[in-house]
């Protein structure tokens, strides 16, 4: 009941004109960002962070704007999946399987509105999950000392590659690279400069916003430049008829059990470290196929095959907010970016956030509820407008993305040096992507590296230099065990799961072609 009370207070915070307006803007922008091929939740939010920062928004307002964008992008990802068979972002991949066949049968409008409702159900359920689960997790987190936090950070890095990780060595490499970048600058505890090589600009360290925008947004521009003329996304306009844009009650009723089941699965996948939205939608789809697909209609335009992954991935998006808010340890790329926003606003997420800034947390959660209803309202009748956005070709869009990135970073510091650093990160991001090195651990390393070191050093100061303190409590030992398992398991299972994900897509692809 305590949670409900806090939630009511949250609504009091969220229901100001400014906040409602920002939530509306965020949902709108987010849906557009999600719908555009090549822009997903993480790079969309990354571009907007510097802007929210330079606009001088209050912490609560900035978080409401950005999480609305996040939720909006999760909704929007389905639009290009269904109409163009190109997932707008990675989690929307599974939606192409039944969404595109439906569109080909002239039922695109139905698929869009049904997936809109499914997204709503998933996100709505997950937001309730957040309300009840996050405070419980906070209670556990309050027992954490520096040694436990150090173990928790290790766990986050070890599991971030995720169960679908292709190459754990590369995930470890990425995390180490990120932490090493974080080490640049003056050491907070002893005041000596590290790895700055006498360059005064580097004494403050490398601003993580600069790194994030470079790695996520600019590298996307380079990627498009490389693939120019390959015909991805271009020239393929939404030529299929949309059809009716409201789902019939019968259809909704038919899909309701599916939506409810997959919401639960998706939420759990989101909360667990290393799983995230992509896996959430994949598991949702596979389990539903096993459970209800008796006639073998999945993959040929079965509405339940559209509802399942959409409810799953939106629920996972909400679930991923739980560890980010309660522990300060994000479980996915986009929540890592949101964490960057909080840090930039001088708010440290984690258990203390719920105690010291309850207005931020609960205002944010209340705003998510509002955003959800706004998104539902926007996505059913106005979906035709978002469809039109897909007609903007990447050759126009990508320069805009690049320029907005520059505007945002320049707006924060007004420094040419930062812009140079951003370009370097853009190129680095491109090379790493080519080599299949995941970018999220790099980001997380840059964000959490200093924090991780601080906790290690604090623990050692308390124990007066005795390293065994790191294994000094059952909680810490448990966390270490989970991190080891989380790191080793993908090496054993990852290939298997990825093969099945690919097979499913190939199977269906073969049917279409």
């Amino acid at each position, binding site marked *: 009941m305590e949670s409900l009370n806090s939630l009511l207070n949250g609504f009091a915070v969220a229901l100001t004109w400014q906040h409602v307006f920002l939530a509306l803007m965020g949902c709108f922008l987010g849906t557009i960002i999600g719908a555009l091929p090549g822009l997903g939740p993480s790079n969309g939010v990354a571009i907007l962070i510097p802007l929210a920062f330079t606009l001088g928004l209050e912490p609560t307002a900035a978080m409401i704007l950005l999480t609305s964008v996040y939720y909006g992008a999760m909704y929007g990802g389905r639009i290009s999946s269904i109409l163009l068979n190109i997932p707008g972002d990675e989690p929307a991949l599974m939606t192409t399987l039944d969404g595109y066949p439906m569109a080909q049968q002239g039922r695109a409008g139905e698929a869009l509105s049904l997936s809109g409702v499914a997204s709503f159900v998933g996100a709505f359920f997950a937001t309730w999950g957040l309300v009840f689960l996050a405070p419980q997790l906070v209670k556990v987190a309050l027992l954490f000392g520096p040694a436990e936090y150090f173990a928790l950070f290790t766990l986050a890095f070890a599991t971030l590659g995720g169960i679908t990780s292709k190459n754990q060595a590369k995930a470890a490499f990425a995390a*180490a690279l990120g932490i090493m970048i974080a*080490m640049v600058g003056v*050491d907070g505890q002893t005041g000596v400069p590290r790895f700055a090589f006498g360059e005064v600009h580097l004494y403050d360290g490398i601003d993580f916003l600069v790194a994030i925008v470079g790695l996520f947004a600019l590298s996307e521009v380079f990627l498009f430049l490389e693939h120019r003329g390959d015909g991805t996304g*271009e020239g393929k306009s939404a030529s299929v008829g949309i059809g009716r844009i409201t789902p019939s009650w019968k259809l909704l009723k038919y899909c309701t059990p599916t939506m409810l089941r997959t919401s639960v699965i998706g939420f759990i996948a989101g909360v667990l470290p290393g799983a995230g939205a992509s896996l959430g939608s994949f598991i949702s789809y596979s389990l539903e196929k096993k459970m209800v697909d008796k006639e073998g209609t999945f993959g040929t335009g079965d509405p339940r095959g559209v509802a399942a992954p959409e409810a799953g991935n939106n629920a996972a998006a909400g679930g991923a907010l739980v560890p980010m808010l309660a522990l300060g340890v994000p479980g996915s790329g986009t929540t890592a970016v949101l964490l960057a926003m909080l840090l930039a606003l001088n708010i440290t997420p984690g258990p203390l956030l719920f105690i010291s800034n309850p207005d931020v947390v609960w205002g944010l959660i209340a705003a998510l509820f509002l955003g959800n209803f706004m998104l539902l309202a926007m996505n059913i009748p106005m979906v035709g407008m978002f469809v039109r956005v897909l007609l903007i070709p990447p050759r126009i869009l990508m320069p805009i993305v690049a320029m907005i990135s*520059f*505007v945002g970073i320049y707006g924060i510091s007004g420094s040419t040096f930062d*812009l140079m650093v951003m370009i370097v990160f853009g190129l680095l991001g491109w090379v790493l992507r080519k080599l299949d090195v995941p970018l999220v651990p790099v980001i997380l390393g840059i964000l959490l590296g200093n924090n991780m070191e601080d906790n290690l050093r604090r623990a050692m100061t308390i124990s007066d230099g005795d390293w065994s303190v790191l294994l000094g409590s059952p909680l810490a030992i448990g966390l270490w065990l989970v991190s080891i398992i989380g790191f080793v398991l993908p090496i054993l299972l990852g290939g298997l799961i990825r093969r099945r994900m690919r097979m499913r897509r190939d199977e269906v692809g073969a049917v279409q072609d």
Partner: protein
Amino acid sequence: MSDRIFGGIGLLFALLFIWAAFHIELSFISDPVGPRTFPIIVAIVMALASVVIIIKPDVKPQWPRAARLLEIAIAAGVMVAYALALPEVGFLIATAVASAFLTWRLGTAPLWALVSGALTSIGIYTVFHLILGLSLARGPFGF
């Protein structure tokens, strides 16, 4: 092969990092761990990961042809030039030129690229400066 080279560079970088860590000056105030230890631990992790990558490389990624690589390099060069020009010529002109170049290289016809560049620049200026009040770089003409 790409992965082997990447692993080699990673290993070299990690070793350099360890070397640099040993040259961090210690100050008279210090904690039991000190400013050197953690960076060294992390660099060792990176070195180990690099060795694994060298031993077990993935399939080679598809690298673009030399002409395309040059193109990416030129685009990066244009961005650097943009960053340098920004405080000199102001936001509107610099942005119009840079985005016209990028959209041209991404496949817009040259004349349309100029139009698109100008519109991008004016659009961003309108939204972010005139409406949202963000301060953008000012050139000699005040915009």
